């Protein structure tokens, strides 16, 4: 509950940028630099939104997502997947795994802000409208 | 690439090679016989007994003659046997 965002991203500079953007908007950003233990952290923290990178050391983003979805506590948490791969296949895989939104790197700062706000607002109703303007 | 060939022509060479191997196997037996043959002859010139005795020089000529002959035959066989080294062995 509240205005917490769990950010799982191993690139330090990208994480710093996202933290800056979201913090300025009043979010509390908790950052993890690797995939190991990320799903458990999500269950402890129960953030409003999870921002998850696809390629992570330790465990891949898709694995973490699948783990979260299989846990009752975190099954409904809104998740934004970040990916640096442009292929449609990657996007399909992310959607199949249950990602609510999909942002391709590089993204506009406004996009990530909009997605986080939207997902946090629509959280009670479960799934938001898929696709949407935010998706590149 | 192995494909069927005319059997009559094909069989000749391997057949020759096998007989050559037979000959090579027999050669030492034959040579052994020739080397041991003098055992059966009358003893060479016994001291004192002149009549009918063989001469030592003819023994020498005999042995070296047989020996050289065996070397020559063996040398004639060798090339034919060496080329069949890598082919299937034993009949």
């Amino acid at each position, binding site marked *: 509950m509240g205005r917490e965002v769990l950010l799982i991203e191993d690139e330090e500079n990208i994480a710093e940028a996202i933290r800056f*953007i979201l913090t300025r908007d009043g979010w509390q950003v908790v950052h993890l630099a690797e995939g190991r233990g990320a799903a458990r952290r999500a269950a402890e923290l129960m953030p409003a939104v999870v921002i998850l990178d696809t390629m992570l050391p330790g465990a891949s983003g898709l694995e973490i997502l699948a783990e979260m979805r299989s846990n009752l506590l975190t099954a409904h948490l809104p998740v934004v997947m970040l990916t640096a791969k442009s292929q449609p296949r990657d996007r399909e895989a992310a959607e199949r795994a249950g990602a609510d939104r999909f942002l391709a*790197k590089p993204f506009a700062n406004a996009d990530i802000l909009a997605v986080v706000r939207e997902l946090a607002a629509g959280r009670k109703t479960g799934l938001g409208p898929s696709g949407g303007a935010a998706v590149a | 690439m192995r494909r069927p060939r005319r059997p009559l022509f094909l069989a000749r060479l391997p057949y020759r090679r096998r007989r050559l191997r037979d000959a*090579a196997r027999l050669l030492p037996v034959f040579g052994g016989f020739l080397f041991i043959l003098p055992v059966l002859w009358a003893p060479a010139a016994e001291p004192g007994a002149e009549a009918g005795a063989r001469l030592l020089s003819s023994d020498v000529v005999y042995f070296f003659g047989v020996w050289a002959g065996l070397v020559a035959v063996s040398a004639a066989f060798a090339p034919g046997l060496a080329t069949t080294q890598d082919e299937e062995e034993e009949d």
Partner: protein
Amino acid sequence: MPFNLLVLACLAYVVFLFCVAFWVERRAYAGRFGWLRSPLVYTLSLSIYCTAWTFYGAVGYAARSGMEFLTIYLGPTLVFIGWWWVLRKLVRIGRKHRVTSIADLISSRFGKSNALGVVVTLMAVVATTPYIALQLQSVVLSFGVFSNAADSLDAGQTAIWVAGGLAVFTIIFGTRNLDAQEQHHGIVTAIAVEAVVKLVALLAVGIFVVWGLAGGVGAMLDRIDASELSAWTMQPGRWTGLIFLSAAAVICLPRMFQVMVVENADEGHLATASWAFPAYVLAMSLFIVPIAVIGLERLPDHANPDMFVLTLPLHEGQNALAMLAFLGGFSSATSMVIIEAIALSTMVSNHILVPGWLRLRPQAAVADDLRGVVLNARRLSIAAVMAMGYGYYQLSGGSAALASIGLIAFAGVAQFLPAMVGGIFWRGATKAGAMAGLLIGFVTWAYALFLPSFGPDAVLSASLLAEGPWGVTWLRPQALFGVAGMDPLIHAIFWSLMLNGTAFFVISVLTFPSPVERLQGAAFVNVFDEGSGAPRRWSRGEAEPEELLVMAQRILGDEEAQVLFESEARGQGKTQSLLPDPTPEFISTLEQRLAGSVGAATAHAMISQLVGGAAVSVGDLMALASESAERAEHSAQLEAQRAELARTAGALREVNEKLTRLSVQKDAFLSQISHELRTPMTSIRAFSEILAEGDLPPEMVARNGRIIHEETKRLTRLLDDLLDLSVLENGKVTLSLTLSNLRDMIDRAIQASEQVKPEREVVFRRDLMRENIFLRTDADRLTQVFINLISNARKYCEAEFPEIRINLRMRGGRVIIDVIDNGRGIPKDAQSTIFEKFTRLPEEGRAKGAGLGLAICREITENLGGTIAYLPGQGGAAFRLILPLRLDLGAQGQGG
């Protein structure tokens, strides 16, 4: 003739042989064999059958016993012209199973039993040590002929100089390399030279005698008939028995086995030797009778007929000829002693010293530098064999006992005959049978021939000789079982071989062989059937290839082992890794290679330590049996067609797999590039947007600007690498070839990579002397490779005190450079992929760099005409770079 001149000539001759051996070793080392491996050299090396006993002794033998001396050469003649029977099989088995000695052959045939190896070794040592003493004695005697009272040398002193000199020569050239299969080119060639010298010398003396003294062939024949030699009568028993004995000895003598089987470079040479060797011994014996006849005619009665070859020319005032004859005799003696010492020392070290050492320290198989141990064991054995020969000479020196020792030694080694010939022709022969036969034959030989040869009351008391032990007459040494009145030599040969063969056969029939024995038996007897030569002895995959490599390196040496493993890995279709899979075939190959160095029994024991026991079960045997039965059912045609089909299918499958792999690789590559480009761009875009908003405190602006700058640099670097790689991969790179110093390049690379983790103190271990060579190559590119390798080592070596070793050596026209750190190394499953683009190790995470470094290294080395590979088993991460010394542009871009 002045005695000093003789010593000088002798020394000059030895120095000459040294040079020959040394020059040949160098040639062989450089891989230029040429005539070194010709049938001629092989045949000439076989001539060590003719020792000083032939050179001097045959004339004496002829003077005493007429034509009987011929038997010693007729037997080998029959064996060689009948090579298709036995020799061909022996040589094939020797090569296929990498046999190191006759003891190794017998031990290997009977289930790799080291006990048999020990017995054969001891028998060989006992039987041939007196023979070595005989050679020493002949050299001493021949010196004695020249020396006169004024400057005569002490005989014992001569002997010790000769024995010591031979030991040094043998140790220098006999123990350079370990693998008995691939060595001794120097010695074998020196032996071949000596063979020519002794033949020329004997022929020269003979020609001088026939045409110079006797007056032509006709006159010579008349003189032969007139001489006392014609009083000779043929004794049928001795005649036949000696032909048989010499035929057996030519196969069983350790030195003959050494040159005939172990040093054989090509089976085809045997075909030439089959007639050329009989021709050689014929030439050697051609003038024996004339020399004996004329010697008896012209020399005073008290002259020793054993020295006629020397004394006759001296007596006639032909000093030069006498000198030649002396060198011929010297050659005969030295060549025999050298090869005998090598053969015996291989047996002693492989079957007694090394197994004993391994038994004392079982963990040594993997823990110590066995190579040094084995080489030292061999050196020690050579010295010991020489010392024993000398000791025997001192004990019995000059006694009449030595004169007959040649035939006694023949009879001793002939005891190997049943086990050896039975072993390679009869699958039913068992270890127990071989052991029983060998022991009984040996004991009988010693009791009936060897010990009595010392004379009454020397070892066996006169009363024992005359009446038998405890008065049991049928056990009299020279009249066993009541067979009295036989020639003692023939009596001993008859009984020893008779009892030996009987025991071998009967015990073999009664006992049951172990699975390993049966496998080895089948492999030896059916050596000509393709496929069954290397039976499966090991079950799959229990050994770690890396451990096997470590062990192989300790025995074969680093380079040999790595070359073997690499070629095996290539054979398994692995192009990047140096480690082959531990398939049963590979382990068998490895075992055979090791057997070539330390003998079959030891190699087997060492491998089973790692693989976990000899994994031969009765089930395996059944599988093998049904396999061969199946093979027999199919006609050769069907078999060939099936193989052809399988090959085609295999080729198609391979192509298909390759295409699929390529397509997958291309997708993965594009996706990777996209990822690598987008990651820095994300940061740049995000921070530039933040900056564009414009209401930031100045320190934030500065920080964001720096991040943007960093990421831009990263992007540029990535693009540079990619471009580089694409140019290199397409082979369109222009190389600027110069002659550059390797040390300078490495210096520069070390300096350039200091910026990677500058806080770490890294110690470099280099060989600056060796690095100081000039390569014709593209220096900048090569330096880049070193920078990448050294930076990687700095980055990922997690040792507390990091250390980077750079080893260097030359092979052929190439230089091999190993860059090795002392970290944890690269995990086995990752070794095969590290040279692929964008490969990073799991724990490496998102460290700097896109994982292109090693891919670029590989492309550069290939463009420079070399190869790069991961070198496992070195402790840390290790990379091996092989580069041509002189890159010529024609070959550029074609890779290794």
